[in-house]
């Protein structure tokens, strides 16, 4: 469970300013959602993988990908069965009322796969966020604009692992008191779970009062708050931000000129339909790889380590 949460490992990527880290992850997310070209989507997946590797998070990524792959399979299956726009028919099934004749086309499978990769990208970006961004840093960044809301988020972020642990404890206690969660009808199982949740909520409400008391004792709400800033903007942040800006600029400009988009139906287009497709892709990937490249340089080049 713990691997799903941020852990301080003293990594280069974890030392980025939250704004630079958010700009990098935000750019990746925007591009992953904007591009539909399989090569571009695969490229972003590759960047995500390399960055996860530099963030020493391959094990965590694997857990995320397991969930992602299950969802990807579902997307491919549903898309292949439901979309009848492809021309290259691989299998012609029976006629089903309302849905019509079931056909599976190569294009529909291909489109499902591309959308699956897009989903893996989004999941990988979320994984990266958990690996490299300390939640307090983000909260700190946003507290300037919405102090109370970010505090609520901070409290929720802190309470999540506590609640997960408590859930386990209450479940164990109920097991010892004879509740068998694996037996019974669906209704009975729901009833058992509701008792568990009931207990969890009661305890959480009691705890929240104590946390509130501790906040009150530390002058919370006694007047305007100031903001504790600890993170300084460094050259590494400028370089990462520049990389993200280049990737975003090139990606959006490419999309405007038709690169990064792809035609799946009725028949698949050509994967590489000109040097422009490759050029834009390379610029986007180079920009997105900036944090990973800087990390590599930071480890190997003393000059870079001292200067950035």
């Amino acid at each position: 469970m713990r691997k799903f949460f941020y852990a301080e490992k003293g990594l280069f990527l974890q030392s980025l300013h939250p704004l630079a880290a958010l700009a990098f992850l935000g750019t990746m997310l925007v591009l992953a959602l904007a591009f539909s070209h399989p090569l571009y989507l695969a490229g972003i997946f590759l960047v995500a993988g390399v960055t996860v590797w530099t963030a020493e998070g391959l094990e965590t990524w694997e857990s995320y990908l397991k969930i992602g792959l299950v969802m990807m399979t579902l997307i491919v299956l549903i898309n292949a069965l439901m979309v009848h726009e492809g021309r290259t028919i691989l299998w012609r099934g029976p006629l089903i009322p309302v849905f019509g004749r079931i056909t599976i086309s190569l294009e529909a499978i291909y489109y499902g796969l591309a959308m699956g990769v897009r989903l893996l990208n989004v999941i990988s970006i979320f994984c990266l966020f958990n690996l490299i961004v300390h939640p307090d840093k983000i909260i700190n960044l946003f507290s300037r604009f919405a102090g109370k809301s970010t505090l609520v988020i901070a409290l929720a972020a802190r309470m999540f692992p506590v609640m997960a642990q408590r859930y386990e404890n209450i479940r164990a206690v109920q097991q010892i008191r004879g509740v068998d969660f694996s037996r019974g009808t669906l209704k009975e199982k729901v009833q058992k779970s509701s008792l568990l949740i009931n207990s969890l909520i009661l305890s959480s409400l009691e705890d929240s009062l104590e946390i509130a008391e501790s906040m009150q004792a530390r002058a919370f709400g006694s007047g305007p708050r100031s903001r504790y800033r600890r993170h300084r903007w460094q050259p590494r942040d400028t370089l990462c931000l520049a990389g993200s800006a280049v990737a975003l600029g090139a990606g959006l400009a490419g999309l405007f000129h038709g690169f990064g988009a792809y035609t799946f139906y009725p028949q698949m287009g050509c994967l590489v339909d000109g040097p422009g497709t490759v050029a834009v892709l390379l610029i986007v990937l180079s920009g997105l790889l900036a944090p990973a490249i800087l990390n590599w340089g930071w480890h190997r080049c003393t000059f870079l380590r001292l200067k950035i």
Partner: protein
Amino acid sequence: MHLFKVENLIYFYPDREKPALAEINLVIEEGEFLLVAGESGSGKSSLARALAGLLPDFYGGRFGGKIYFRDREMRKIDRRRLAREVGMVFQDPEKQMVMTGVEAEIAFGLENLGLPPAEMFRRTAEVLSFLDLGKLREEFTANLSGGEKQKLALAAVLAMHPQVLICDEPTSQLDPAAAEDFLNLLKRLNEEMGLTVVLIEQRLERCFHLADRVLLLESGRIVLDSPPEQVARRAGIKDIPFLPPVARLFSSLGQTYVPVTVKEGRKYLQHLLSGFPGENVRFLSDQNKTGGKPIREKKQGKKTLLEASSFAGNGGKPPLAEVKNLWFTYPGGKKVLENVSFSVNAGEFVVILGENGAGKSTLLKIMAGLLKPSRGNVFYAGRELTGSNGRCEGRGAPVAYLAQNPNDYLFHDTVEEELLFTLKNFGLADDGIVDELLTKLHIERYRRTNPRDLSSGERLRVALASVLVTRPGLILLDEPTRGVDTRLKGELGAFLRAQAKEGAGVVLVTHDAEFAAEYSSRIIVISAGRIAAAGNKHEILENSLFYCPQIGKLCRGFGNGILTFDEAVQWLEPLLRAGQTARTGGAPAGASE
């Protein structure tokens, strides 16, 4: 000018008819170290909250009388100013953290005070360094140990530069080493930085000697307010249980001088026993051999060691529970238990001691059937545990397990329903067990009360009753003595001992060596997942530097084999009487101030 002056303070929590504080008149001077003692529900925490300005503002309720802080009425002082002057550390470190990271947690209070960033940075850096938390600066609060969490809570308060530090049972959730560490820190803050400290504590053996003054509360009223030595002396007359064992012993023996620390006690004991040159006292704990009476034995030279009482055999029957070659590794690869083997017979009261993270709780969970061992087996009455919830094939519920947090057991509207819930789940009828347990655990009057409205001690008893209704053969308890007052601890110990006498096997995990010495029949010490020592309580505790109870430390070298209060009284009383007779007969003086 007094720091605090409390005049006729009376306070009722909302919807309560009985006052939590009544007629409190109190003066606290600058730089004092005040220790507040008393039973659960005696008003200690309420007094702390009142002094921190949390009553009645945070809780509501009815409030009468006045509290002055530096001659200004407290309720008229701006809350921000008050928070700068008075800091409070609460009981449970888990429930006072707000932020996810260590540094942000320390800065939280400073942000609330509206301090400029440079000042916040300076204070955070200072306090991290002072409390030696620097290496944890970037750490998540969730990953800290209990001791580190409580230190962080203290750091977060100290960063606000308070003049007064109020600590409400800050060590109740910590293991002995972390607790000692925390209390020493408080003493340092008091002595080196002149901070006024108001400390509320249950386990007085650790902090009695640190205080300048001890305040004893009973039903919301102050019944004693004196320096520790005077409280110790008067305790003998008033029969106050809230004393460290050393002081309680000398006080109950009617001594005019009552030492409060082991060091003072040993010095005094040496003085008392100086009337018996060349003579050693031997004490046998085995009641069958001596009828429970200490025997004096003339012996030359070396001191005699206690003969370890052997465990009663089990008449050829398999033991009630047996743990064989148990290994446990968490899926993440963390090894918690290594080749642990032991058995528990019916009628035994086994205490498991060990540092935090030693694997004690994991062991208990495996014995309860809640975790599957990686290797090895657990047997009940010769049959292997196969069920997922402490059940063996063809048996009802042979194991009762009380987890660390009793609140996890309470979710029904009445106490009675909690007990009936377990019975229903196991398909058992109430054959009078509900009444029996409610009476035995003194919670009969709360039968129709919502368990969440009860005090923590009462909740513990309801949780215990809710697992004992199945009449289990083996009772497993995970740190039930944590944060529990002396009286309740005594009641719990006596209850469990009675359960053992009736034929149950009791296995209890605790950090409380005093409790272990008093009630257990056997002790197992676990360290880093392995059994470091196992045997008769006298064998284990007497020779332990760390787990030896205060009475054991006091008597070591004088009267070997003595661990408990009763044993010490049985040993010392005749000696002192003999010394008295000798003195009146003209023999060399033995004792007395």
